């Protein structure tokens, strides 16, 4: 368990960022802990024995100044290096809040909330179905402020659940491969390369394992909804002996070490920063379509400091907070009035038809349906391994 407490006087920020840069080399903190045991995505029903288990997290704190400092506790699945600019800016604007920021994996942040629903003031996660599930059951309180009311309808649900980032799911391709075989800009290109007899990509691909990674499963189900040709791609991936891993970090490590040439379905926000210093790798937003994940934040009904939570949500959705996101460049600012690099507006302009944000709608609940999941995974295994697979075997495997 990594637990680090950082008290931050304003002048220590620079050194802190430097030390945090090391963390980015660690395995993906947000999605990495989708271990097979916890990775089924159903901590509620499937793993009651995990309920009392302590979740692993990193922590950063900001001391509040002034006589009456108010506490603000944020539980998130958003790595500290990405969250830090936001926290620092918020702390500069509202120095009287003592902020405790804990970073969990997506599944742990969910489990932590179920274990202690009155602990956090704000819960942030990129696992959209899980967040939606909690809010649908009435665990969130309504945040009705001028800023939340102006927030676009497609990026919020019931004034309770707010999307504040815009993170496409991308491919990472090695330039050496492209020099040999031509550019890989879309799924069609990929499928074309895979369809060739004696494919040059045999064993050179890597992607998420939907059976053991919550993120991988979410992308799989959304892609299967978007296009029936997804299954052709899965079959082709299977024929090409694609490696299945559980984290973005594992995929990027494989690429850096030259074990793979293409990583399919990588969370763009994490990949962008990690391959920035590697000239051999190129980040590709597929130009046929790209899923877009939006990180969701809500304030629990039992939040101990609802006033502070409201202030923070307001900040996240304000032009100021969104500008900080845009300037950091990784997460993608959703604010409709912001433009330029690192904003959803600019990305939409570059890919007018291709971006497919996962909608904030009850359809997300279907993603979490046990039978649906079993059925989808069965199909996936069948297509991938090109043979009928007994669904019971899939169930056992997922357990």
């Amino acid at each position, binding site marked *: 368990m990594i637990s680090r407490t950082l008290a931050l006087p304003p002048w220590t920020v620079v050194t802190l960022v430097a030390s945090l840069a090391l963390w980015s080399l660690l395995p993906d903190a947000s999605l990495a802990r989708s271990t097979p045991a916890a990775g089924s995505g159903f901590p509620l029903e499937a793993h009651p024995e995990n309920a009392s288990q302590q979740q692993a997290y990193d922590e950063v704190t900001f001391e509040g100044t002034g006589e009456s400092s108010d506490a603000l506790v944020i539980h998130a699945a958003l790595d500290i290096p990405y969250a830090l600019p936001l926290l620092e800016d918020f702390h500069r604007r509202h120095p009287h809040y003592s902020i405790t920021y804990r970073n969990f994996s997506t599944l742990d942040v969910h489990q932590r909330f179920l274990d202690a629903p009155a602990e956090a003031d704000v819960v942030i996660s990129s696992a959209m179905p899980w967040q939606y*599930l909690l809010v*649908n*059951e*009435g665990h969130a309180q309504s945040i009705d402020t001028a800023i939340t009311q102006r927030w676009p*309808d497609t990026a919020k*649900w*019931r004034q309770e659940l707010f999307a504040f980032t815009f993170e496409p799911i991308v491919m990472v391709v090695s330039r050496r491969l492209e020099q040999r075989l031509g550019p890989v800009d879309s799924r069609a290109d990929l499928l074309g390369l895979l369809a060739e007899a004696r494919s040059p990509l045999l064993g050179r691909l890597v992607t998420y394992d939907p059976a053991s990674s919550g993120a991988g499963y979410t992308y799989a189900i959304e892609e299967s*909804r978007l296009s029936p040709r997804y299954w052709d791609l899965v079959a082709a991936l299977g024929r090409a002996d694609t490696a299945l891993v559980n984290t973005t970090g594992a995929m990027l490590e494989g690429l850096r070490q030259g074990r793979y040439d293409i990583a399919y379905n990588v969370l763009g926000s994490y990949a962008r920063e990690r391959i920035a210093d590697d000239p051999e790798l190129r980040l590709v937003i597929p130009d046929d379509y790209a899923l877009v994940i939006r990180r969701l934040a809500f304030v629990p009904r039992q939040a101990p400091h609802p006033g502070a939570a409201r202030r923070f949500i307001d900040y996240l959705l304000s032009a100021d907070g969104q500008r900080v996101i845009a300037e950091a460049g990784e997460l993608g600012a959703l604010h409709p009035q912001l433009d330029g690099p690192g904003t959803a507006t600019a990305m939409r302009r570059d890919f007018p038809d291709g971006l497919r944000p996962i909608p904030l*709608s*009850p*359809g*997300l*609940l*279907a*993603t*979490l*349906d*046990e*039978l*649906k999941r079993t*059925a989808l995974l069965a199909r996936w295994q069948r297509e991938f391994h090109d043979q009928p697979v007994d*669904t*019971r075997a899939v169930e056992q495997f997922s357990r």
Partner: protein
Amino acid sequence: MSGDSLHRRLLTWLLLPMLIVGSVVLWRAWLDARQTADRAFDRLLDAASLSIAEQAQWQDDRLWLDLPPAALEMLASRHDERVFYTLVDARGERVTGNADLPGIEGAAQEASDVVYGNVEYHGMPLRLGVRRSRLEDWRLREPFEIRVAHTREGRDALSGELFRQSLAYLLAVAVLSVAALLIAIRLALAPLTRLRRQIRSRDPRTLAPLELPLPRELAELRDTVNELLARMRRVKANQERFIGDASHQLRTPLAGLSARAELALRQDDPAIWRSALGAMQTTSQSASRLAMQLLSLTRLDNPEYRPELAPTDLVQVAREAVMAHWQRCQRADVDLGLEAPEAPVRVQGLDWQLGEALANLIDNACHYGARHITVEVSADPIALAVTDDGPGIPHERRLLVLRPFHRGEHASEGSGLGLAIVDGIARTHGARLSLGDARETPPPGLRVSLLFAEAVDNESTSAHTRSQP
């Protein structure tokens, strides 16, 4: 406008029922709006449960469902309803779902029927739709139940909108009907205003009847007023005649006095002066008596005149009257007698008025040539009567003689006020005046009697006197 007005009464009693009817209609509209919204949104439950039910199948020896995400999205309108679903097998156990939705008891047994209900789930009011269905398989027909529910935001918004529309409609109707009501009341009350204006614009001295067309209810009022005016006209005519007669009556003795004085002044003989003075004294006495009579008649005729009556002994009154007149009658060779019981007969009355009445009657009898006059007092019935043996009054003229200044055909003296005064006194005492024949044989004579309504109890009289120290 004063506190109580016809206008206000009409408005109140017309608006009150309107208000009650309006509230009932509003209440009904609210129920209808809710029902309509429920019906509209229940179709979503119906469609969603159907599209889920279509995906249910038998697989791997168990009930299986490939949940279509679109079915869940169907349940959420733009109001972002919370959505819940459950698939329950034949044994009532949950196969899958995101909530433990309750079933609905007594739901229809027929397949492909959806039953709706309102339930509370974790403090949230939900609309629940339960679809009973069974697998359409070759081998088995496993029954199952799809339960779908969502929160009520969309329904509330729709029913609120429908209700607002009804409310606006009803308000418009209310405004129109109140306006119509105000105009109608104003029109209906217009004749009343016309009547008031006509009365106000009349010459205050005129007693002419009101002439204007009015609706039936007001026409009755107008006719009543006209009757009153007619009565007032008659009273006024009577008064004018009375004044004329009175002045005429007073002028005759005054003229006689003046002539007699003039005649005497031409003579030098004191004896003649003396006799003239005697005659003038007599005339002036009779003139002053006439004036007295007019005065008392005026007083008696005044409807406002309510003298304070006291217990009075009729026997005493009659005795005093006989004593007062006995000497004069003796000189005129008239026999004046009294017939009265020993015990006092008491009535509520004024002794001087009753004495005056007797004086008038005795005078009248003397004037009209009676030789025997009897004053009678009877205890049962209580009556005071004067009987004479004069010529009497024929039946047909008995009402006329009660009018002032009416005199018998052959009479030369007297004012003609006597019986009118007696009549007035009788009315003051609540007694009935009756004129009748005194005898069967002619000349019939005259019997004038005052019948009193009731005696004053001696006991109560004494009690009354005792109570006044």
